[in-house]
């Protein structure tokens, strides 16, 4: 079973790869909308990538109140 730290790390790797941002520039506390420079349409692309990677379903209302990677990781982790 993954730890939350592993889940967070995988999310950061995925975001860095998909949005072409150097991995070292991302940290768990970052606001992913601001750091990745994305809008809600692109957030849905990220959601699809997360679902494919973790083999889960993550309803988009789980983004409510979430803007940093760490909290997003908690939402993903709860579905593993």
């Amino acid at each position, binding site marked *: 079973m993954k730890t939350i730290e592993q889940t967070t790390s995988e999310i950061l790797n995925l975001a860095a790869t998909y949005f072409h941002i150097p991995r070292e520039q991302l940290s768990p506390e970052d606001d992913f909308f601001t750091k990745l420079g994305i809008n809600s*349409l692109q*957030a*849905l*692309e990220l959601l699809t990538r997360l679902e*494919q990677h973790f083999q889960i379903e993550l*309803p*988009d*209302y789980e*983004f409510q109140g979430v803007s940093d990677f760490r909290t997003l990781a908690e939402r993903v982790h709860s579905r593993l």
Partner: protein
Amino acid sequence: MKSFKGQTLSWELTGGVIELALHREPCNEIGSATLEELEGFAAALESLAGEVSVAILYSTLKPGFSAGADLRELYRRSQQVSGSERVAGVRSFLERIHRVFNTIDGSAATTIAAVHGITFGGGFELALACDLIIADKSARFCFPELRLGLIPGFGGIPRLKRDLGNAVVRDLLLTGRSMNAAKAQAVGLVSQIAGEGQALTVARSTAAQIKKFDRITSATAKRFIKPIPHEELRLEIEIFCDLFSRPAVEAGLRKFVESSGPMPYLP
């Protein structure tokens, strides 16, 4: 006329296959301009019925197939008129959309929606009017209308119920969540999954297969297995218009239109 190049969409008939490309920036929002050009397409689909075996609908825009109704236009027009005129305007729009979607739904040609990315609201409903949905891995399907105090008004509920049954409709409608392509295939909504950017390619090879069959037989089989739920579609329009008159809807539309944050497409 066997081809058309418009502001919001273009289509061309070649070798028994008519391909409709949606291309209204940013994400094929369906407003009055798109409706008018879709009406032209629907008329062509009927007049060319003897020559068309397959119709493929797809989008050339990166974000997706279609984000649904043009909410900005809807809000703007609703602010220009009062109460009963507002509802009358919406009813008129819905009746026109339903005529187009019913034509696509009941077309003698086999229709394929080749979708990717955002396939929301009215865009989802356009795909549901087609016989087959081929989705690339990026596709997401959603009925976001409850977020605005509305229900889907372009025929989505009766069509999705026809195809999948009540439970999936309840899930999508009552949560307003989006569903990815893999899950959509698992529940029977999507017939084939394509690699990213490949939905049109897969749709074309499917069309090549479908074209081999006698057109009359295909059309007859389709009429037999795919009844159009006319009564429920009419009821949907009534319910939509009834809800549209509520202040909560105007507030929901205003919030969407005035939003400058990154969240408008998220619940």
